[in-house]
């Protein structure tokens, strides 16, 4: 089981702030592909080469990072603080 969180413009576009997935994808790349496979706006966000950053357990993650049971994955657009 993993928890997936969506932030800022991503949360609004997907109309989803967080969800729990029972099956654990092997990597962040696999998770992105799985989400894109939902079609529609999910495909637009995750498959069309848009810049979507990922964090695993609240640390920036590369695409290929492995996932484990209990992980928290956050997806968000490039940051704009400061």
């Amino acid at each position: 089981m993993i928890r997936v969180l969506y932030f800022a413009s991503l949360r609004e576009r997907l109309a989803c702030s967080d969800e729990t997935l029972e099956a654990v994808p092997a990597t962040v790349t696999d998770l992105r592909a799985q989400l894109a496979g939902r079609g529609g706006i999910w495909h637009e966000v995750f498959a069309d080469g848009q810049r979507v950053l990922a964090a695993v357990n609240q640390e920036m993650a590369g695409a290929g990072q492995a996932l484990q049971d209990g992980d928290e994955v956050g997806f968000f657009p490039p940051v704009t603080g400061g």
Partner: protein
Amino acid sequence: MNVEIRVQDTPLDAVAEIAPVYAGQASIGGVVSFIGLMRDMNQGDAVSTMKLEHYPGMTEKALAAIVDEAASRWDLAGVRLVHRVGEIRPQDPIVLVCVASAHRGEAFRACEFIIDYLKTRAPFWKREQTAEGKTRWVDSRGSDEAAAAAWEDSK
């Protein structure tokens, strides 16, 4: 090193945050502060309010990692990093970066480093409301990426 990092949804009194960074430490010879303010214009439009969102938990970790990285590069005596979330208006401080060191050079460089890294690595997002009532997410800037990347090259 005396470090304080806060994310707050209440007004940021940037000037009041500075003295505690050096008070009582006579070895400190210089304090450099950066105060980021909300502007009333963006991309040619008048902006009336802005809402800052963040990723609670990750934000604090990311800010701490940035301060740790600065402390590994320069000899620092104190760092205070305070960032607003929630609703703000033009002229409101968004962020304060305050760095104290024995000598000014270290403090200047570390202060700029921290704000440059924060701009590209800390999970905050701005949504602005224009004077005409439209709301929009603020886009990230390539110039911010370039500023952060320059520090990577100088490592």
